[in-house]
Every structure is written in structure tokens, then in C-alpha cells.
């Protein structure tokens, strides 16, 4: 974006916030449904200062990262296997496609039965949800490797390992990173959903409690925190992706 465009966007956001604030103060918006931005900001500052809220955020962050660390390698390995081994692909790809389209929350009770209401349960559900994105991404990334480049490498005497390193890895990197980023979005949503559904700690657990008690400023403040964290992770992964895929022909 150019500088004057940024200015226009910033001004627009300010105008939006100011009119929202004004509408609440004038009584046109019910503050018990949608509190004023100033009230949300106040709640945000108060929440950030409370140690038990910070602890809850840490619990959620740990669950999200653990689930991601497990789901990425296993999901990709499964995706590669389905793409490279025709028999496995024929057997499991219909199942993957079926489960990919189903809302995973249907399976939440199963996870509670197996793991109880616990941190491992949140991690397991996060892994389950995220893995599908990475399986599908893993399959797509293998299929994105141009066969001709493998032929070229063979003509020039590449070993099998050199073909993996020089052709497969760089050709697959953009799609792999993109599916990791998409997986992270699903992962965060899944862990939060899990915590809202039933938990003893975590920011989702707090959101559920504030919601039940109709503590709207706290609820919206928590949403801001979650949104900012999610956007930060998303943007960080996107920057890496852009750097690694500069060679792609973009308009």
C-alpha cells in the first residue's frame, strides 16, 4: 500500500471507532450487547494485568503450539504417503476427503471420552483438525513438482537425494508453507472451540465463563487478544512464505 492509502485506511478505522463509541453513548446501541470501544479497551488493560488471565493465555498458547508441532509433520508425512503410494492413496483418499468436509466439532464428545476434559484432549483435537489441512496440502505439494524438472536433473546426473533436495524441496515449499498457515488458523479455532466446550483453564474457558455471565467488555476484550495473536501468527507465516516463493510468477 502507498502512504496516502495507509492514511485513508487509518482515518477510516478511526471514523468507524468514533461512530461506534458515539452510537453507544447516545443509547442507539445497547451496551449490554455491544459495549463501547472505550469500555472494551478498559477491560483489555484490566485483563492483561490479571495473572490468572495471563496464565490462561499461556495454557492456550501451549496447547496450540503442541498441536501444531505434532500435526504438521504427521499430516505432511501422511499426505506424502498418500500421494506417492498409489495403493494407500486409493484406500485412504476418499476417507480424507469425506472427513475434510465434515465439521470436526461433531467428534468432540469422542475426544472427551478418550482423554477426559484435559490439556491432552485439547491438543489431540487440535491435531485431529489441523492434520486434514496438512494431508491435503501434502498431497497437493507433491503433485505440484514438475516431472520435467526431475527428467532434466536425471539427464544432468542428479542422485535420488539431489533430486529431493534440489527439486522436490524448493518446488514444494510454497504449498507446504501455505498449508501450514491454513492449518494454524484451523488449529487455533479448534483449540478455542474445545476450551469453550469444556475446560478447566485456557482463554477459551474464560471466554465461555464471561459469556455465560454476560460480561461483554471482558468477552470482547478476550476476542481482541485472540484475534491479534492469530493475525500475528498468520502474518509471520505469510512473510516466510512470500520470501520462499518469490520465484512464482505473480501478476
Amino acid at each position, binding site marked *: 500500500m502507498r502512504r496516502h492509502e495507509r492514511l485513508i485506511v487509518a482515518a477510516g478505522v478511526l471514523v468507524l471507532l468514533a461512530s461506534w463509541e458515539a452510537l453507544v453513548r447516545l443509547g442507539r446501541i445497547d451496551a449490554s450487547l455491544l459495549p463501547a470501544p472505550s469500555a472494551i479497551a478498559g477491560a483489555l488493560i484490566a485483563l492483561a494485568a490479571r495473572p490468572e488471565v495471563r496464565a490462561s493465555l499461556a495454557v492456550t498458547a501451549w496447547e496450540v503450539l503442541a498441536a501444531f508441532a505434532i500435526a504438521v509433520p504427521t499430516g505432511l508425512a501422511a499426505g506424502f504417503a498418500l500421494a506417492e503410494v498409489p495403493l494407500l492413496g486409493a484406500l485412504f483418499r476418499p476417507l480424507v476427503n469425506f472427513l475434510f468436509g465434515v465439521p470436526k466439532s461433531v467428534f468432540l464428545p469422542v475426544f472427551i471420552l478418550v482423554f477426559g476434559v484435559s490439556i491432552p484432549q485439547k491438543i489431540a483435537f487440535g491435531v485431529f483438525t489441523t492434520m486434514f489441512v496438512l494431508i491435503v496440502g501434502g498431497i497437493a505439494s507433491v503433485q505440484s513438482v514438475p516431472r520435467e*524438472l526431475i*527428467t532434466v536433473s*536425471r*539427464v544432468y546426473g542428479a542422485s535420488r537425494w*539431489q533430486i529431493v533436495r534440489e527439486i522436490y524441496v524448493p518446488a514444494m515449499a510454497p504449498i507446504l508453507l501455505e498449508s501450514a498457515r491454513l492449518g494454524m488458523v484451523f488449529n487455533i479455532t479448534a483449540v478455542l472451540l474445545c476450551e469453550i466446550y469444556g475446560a478447566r483453564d485456557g482463554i477459551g474457558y474464560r471466554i465461555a465463563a464471561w459469556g455465560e455471565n454476560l460480561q461483554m467488555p471482558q468477552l470482547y476484550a478476550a476476542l481482541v487478544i485472540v484475534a491479534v495473536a492469530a493475525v500475528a501468527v498468520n502474518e509471520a507465516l505469510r512473510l516466510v512464505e512470500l520470501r520462499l516463493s518469490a520465484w512464482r510468477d505473480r501478476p
Partner: protein
Amino acid sequence: MTRALVAIRAVSQRFGSDGAEVTALEDVSLDVPDGQFVALVGPSGCGKSTLLSLVAGLRLPSRGAVLCDGEPVTAPMPRKIGMIFQEANLLPWLSAIDNVAFPLKLRHVPKAERLGRAARMLELTGLAGFEDRLPHQLSGGMKQRVSIARGLVQDPAVLLMDEPFASLDEQTRMVLGDELLRIWSETRKTVLFVTHSLNEAVYLADRVVVLSARPGKVIDDVAVDLPRPRSFAMTSSERFGLLKDRIWQHIRNAERR
């Protein structure tokens, strides 16, 4: 007599298994002396690309053998044989110079040396100044020049070209044809050049080998006795027309069958 640098000895190639077996090449023999420019033509599906991939060591013939410099070809021989395809097939994440240096990288040639050699090849193919461009920043003709530079960078004795200009527009094709002849006269590689274009075949080659369709057999071997260097004016000469005509008769007969 100059010895055959590439010798194709009674080669047959079958694809598929019993029932649906297709014979792509049958009993093809061809001796190519060192430094000769040979064009391979024939109706579509005559197995000329298959023949090239056998010489490249990308597959083994069902019967017969291919020898390069007296050695049987059983696997790719990157130091003796360079190959250029219809599409440039550049690695899209590597700059022009890194693409040219790629075969050297596979052989663990030190970086400074391989970049120096790649830069000289880009100069030879008329791309000095474009070293750092990525493939998507180059035109079709320039990409094919990079691909030719990559084929030459290990100084192989043999250059295999599989319809290298087929996806370029006619003007670019003619310019690159002249460039190829200039490079060939400077380096004196042995060239096996597969093409659909009779003009291209007669204009570039010392010798045009005509293959028939299914199964591919050598049906004619035409010596092109036009003087070198070739010029555009020759393409309208009587001799050029006669040579082209002779090849065309074979192709037409083969397509009719």
C-alpha cells in the same frame, strides 16, 4: 574416416506389456561421426523423441545398444551428453546463471568456478547482462537460450535437442536457429536434433535422418550438401527445395498409411 561418436546399434523399443504392446522403434541403426549435425525427422509418433531419450540414457532399449564414445549408454552420462528439451524446463526458483550452473552444482564443482563457467556460457548464448533474472522474467526465446547454455556448460561432446524451438514463434525460431549454428561452428559439438520442421532440418543439419511411423525405422538418410555457413537466402535455392521435397515425400507417404 572419422569414428562414430554416437553409435546406435540395432535398437528396438517396445512399450506396454503383452496384448497392448506398441513397437516404437524397430531395428534402428545409426552412426554419428564426431562433430556432425544430424536432424531426425519423421511423422508424429515415429519414435524420434524415444530414440533421443535412449541416447540420453533415460531408458534402456528393449533390444540393441547405444554407444557413446565407445561406451555403452546404460544411464545418463552428464559429462558427455547435454540435453535440451522442447520446453526450457528451467528451475523457476533459480536465476539464469544458477540454472546454467546447475549441472556443475550436481557434480560439486566449487561455486566460484561454476559461476564463472556459467557466465561464459550465458555470454556465448547472447545473454550477458541477464545473469540474475528469474525464468519468469525472461521471454520464451531467452529461456531456451538459458537452456542451451545449461546444455553446454559441462562441455559435453554430444548435444541432444528434442524439438527445442517447437514452442517458439517463427521469428524467434529463425533467430535461434542461426544462433545455434554460430555456437555449433564455435564449439563443434555432435548434435542430434529432433524436429517437426523440414525447413529447420535442412537449414541446420549436415544430414537428415528420416524415420517412419509405428514402428519407427530409418527409411532415408539424406546428406545435406549445402555450403556452410548457411544463410537465409539458401532457403529459396533450388537445391534446398529438392532436399526438402525428397524428405517430404517420405513423410507424406508415411502419414497416408
